[in-house]
């Protein structure tokens, strides 16, 4: 099982044992909730409520700020307490709407749809857009934009990213076990948009139960197929997943649609289902609290806007004082100074590590061993690029294809000299992109 894969990659300890067998638990928020107006790639949303307004759960509190943008909804009923900048998981200050929760969870009326097949394509995309669905695997790219490619007839594959290749994370895993029907229904809706497309579920073979379950449930779906993938990081990287499931290759200058593919994460597809079928906007998501420093790791259905700290309390708090807390997985997640940070549409987990590998390891000289080269899924030369980044050699960096880096962090992970290669390359990429914008 699981022959589909890509070249390169690494095999970090997967750490999923902490939370994989914990069923999803619903959490009811207390106190105040914080809703950053920028929870997606693109223009920030603009608030449509004022301080003092009462809001209901499911009420729009910020309107999309453009085509590539997404609205934000309140996940609780209560009063708007303030609109001010708050620190987000990436460390930036983001304008946020703060709502004092009245604890009553009074909801707006949703407009569910009886027969989805009667909806036109435009109606479906409209509902997805209105619900504020974005790529919930972490990228946060507005989904309605993804679903509106230039040539919809050329889309041949809708790939559900069920790889969950990041160590420790088990949110998608639990979703596949507990809500597979919603996932499949989400896929069915997307397939309705693309007449020539086939739906693929790419699942790593360390989740045989999910593979079996999805195969069972899709056996009467002629347009859907389950693709078992080899367990390897970053199997769920967009370019890697497309290659593993379809053998098509895309580079940094292309979109998945250029290869006839659209990739959506498990949680995103479920949000599409909720948006179209139930008429519910994105207010909740599944969230893993895990790591060796957490007392009772688990998977939670959280109301967006709750702080990481509040979710942590539900997981029993810390067992030991962690050295590092991370929003997301250990390979691509963001480390955070503190827990008073709001969860957003793209928050998939809180990982608390008792020991910080990075602080514990001493950087030594590069010995040119080439392990980063073997590990790089983009087949570039991380150590050389990091050196060029160090010298500020932009021309060399581009010549050696540095812009193709997907920032998966495999090179930093594997490096025996413990050089933060991905960090140097990421920084250089940002500088070059900034230079290009100047021109």
């Amino acid at each position: 099982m699981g022959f589909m894969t890509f070249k390169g990659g690494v095999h970090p300890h997967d750490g999923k044992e902490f939370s994989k067998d914990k069923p999803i638990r619903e959490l009811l928020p207390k106190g105040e909730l914080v809703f950053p107006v920028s929870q997606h790639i693109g223009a920030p949303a603009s608030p449509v409520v004022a301080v003092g307004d009462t809001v209901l759960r499911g009420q729009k509190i910020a309107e999309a700020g453009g085509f590539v943008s997404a609205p934000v909804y309140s996940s609780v009923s209560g009063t708007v307490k303030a609109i001010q900048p708050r620190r987000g998981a990436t460390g930036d200050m983001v304008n946020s709407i703060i709502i004092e929760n009245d604890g009553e969870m009074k909801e707006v009326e949703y407009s569910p749809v009886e027969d989805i097949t009667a909806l036109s394509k435009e109606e479906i995309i409209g509902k997805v857009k209105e619900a504020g669905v974005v790529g919930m695997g972490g990228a946060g790219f507005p989904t309605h934009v993804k679903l509106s490619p230039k040539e919809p007839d050329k889309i041949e594959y809708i790939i559900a990213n069920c790889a969950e290749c990041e160590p420790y994370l088990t949110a998608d895993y639990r979703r596949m076990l507990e809500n597979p029907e919603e996932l499949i229904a989400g896929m069915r809706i997307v397939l309705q948009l693309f007449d020539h497309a086939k739906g693929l579920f790419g699942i790593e073979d360390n989740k045989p139960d999910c593979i079996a379950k999805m195969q069972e449930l899709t056996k009467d779906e002629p347009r859907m197929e389950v693709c078992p993938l080899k367990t390897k990081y970053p199997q769920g990287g967009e370019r890697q997943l497309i290659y593993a499931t379809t053998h098509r290759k895309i580079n940094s200058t292309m979109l998945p649609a250029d290869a006839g593919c659209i990739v959506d994460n498990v949680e995103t597809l479920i949000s599409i289902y909720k948006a179209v079928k139930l008429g519910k906007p994105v207010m909740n998501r599944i969230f893993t609290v895990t790591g060796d420093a957490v007392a009772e790791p688990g998977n939670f259905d959280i109301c967006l806007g709750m702080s990481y700290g509040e979710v942590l309390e539900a997981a029993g708090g810390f067992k030991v004082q962690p050295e590092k807390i991370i929003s997301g997985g250990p390979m691509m997640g963001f480390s955070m100074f503190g827990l008073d940070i709001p969860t957003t549409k793209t928050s998939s987990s809180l990982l608390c590590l008792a020991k910080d590998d990075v602080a514990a390891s001493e950087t030594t000289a590069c010995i040119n061993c080439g392990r980063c080269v073997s590990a790089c899924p983009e087949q570039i030369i991380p150590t050389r690029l990091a050196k060029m980044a160090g010298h500020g050699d932009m021309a060399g960096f581009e010549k050696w294809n540095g812009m193709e880096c997907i920032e998966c962090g495999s090179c930093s992970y594997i490096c025996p000299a413990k050089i933060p290669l991905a960090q140097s390359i990421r920084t250089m990429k940002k500088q070059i992109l900034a230079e290009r914008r100047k021109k």
Partner: protein
Amino acid sequence: MSDLYNVSSSSHIRAKDTSAKIMLYVAIALLPASLFGIWNFGLRALILILVCVATCVASEWIFEKLIHKKSTINDFSAVVTGLLLALNLPHTLPVWQAVLGSVFAIVIVKMLFGGLGQNFMNPALGARCFLLVSFAGTMTSFTYDGVTGATPLALLKNGETVDTMKMLLGTTAGTIGETSVIAVLLGAIFLILMGVIDLTIPASYILSFGVFVLLFGGHGFDMTYLTAHLCGGGLMLGAFFMATDYVTSPITPMGRVVYGIVLGILTGLFRLFGANAEGVSFAIILGNLLVPIIEKFTIPRAFGQKKEVKQHE
């Protein structure tokens, strides 16, 4: 209790292997050849090995002390250099020459260029070639069982017959560590199993050298002649332990194949058409110098990049 947690750029986890561990594996992999050399050549071999290792480590420590840098002797790379150098010396070499070679390897070839990872030439081989041109007499006189004799390669060059079985086992004249093909291969297999080296460079090196010998050796498809060339001299030690030296070999996947082929051709040229019977050391050193050019022409295409796509200038 601090309220702030550690913050750093991802990734947040690190694999267990360190550079020091890799170097330690290389040192361990050289043990079969070293032990065989000691058994084959006796106490003098042991003394030379100890002297070279000790001198290499000491020169690195003293050099770093003098320039007020943090000591790096814990990374085992000086140990590997010392060991490799010793294995490339005849056991009859005067100790002071071995000391001089070790100092040259570490101070001139390695530290003056910036230390570990910065040297453009393999330190042990650089030192061996330095000794070869400085002390040609002692470096090329080989004795076996107390009798001065030629190495199998030298015999081969003079058109005499050699015993390939003895060459495989290593019971012949030669430098301390190069004689036994079996001992060298044992270490090489260990390195491959531990993931320290892969077969790209050794295989392309040995194959291209073999083809060169078949084409230009003047013996046609004489398998005994070919086997003698493959087992003789420092080819196996060089191909598995020195051509694969990370620092001085190309990092581009295609470049590694090209490098191996270049080494094979150079070794063939030196052995068949040069004045000396041996050619591995000079071939690898020359190959080391060609690495930047090889890399320049073998920049890999990134995943999903098409051939015709031109890069931004």
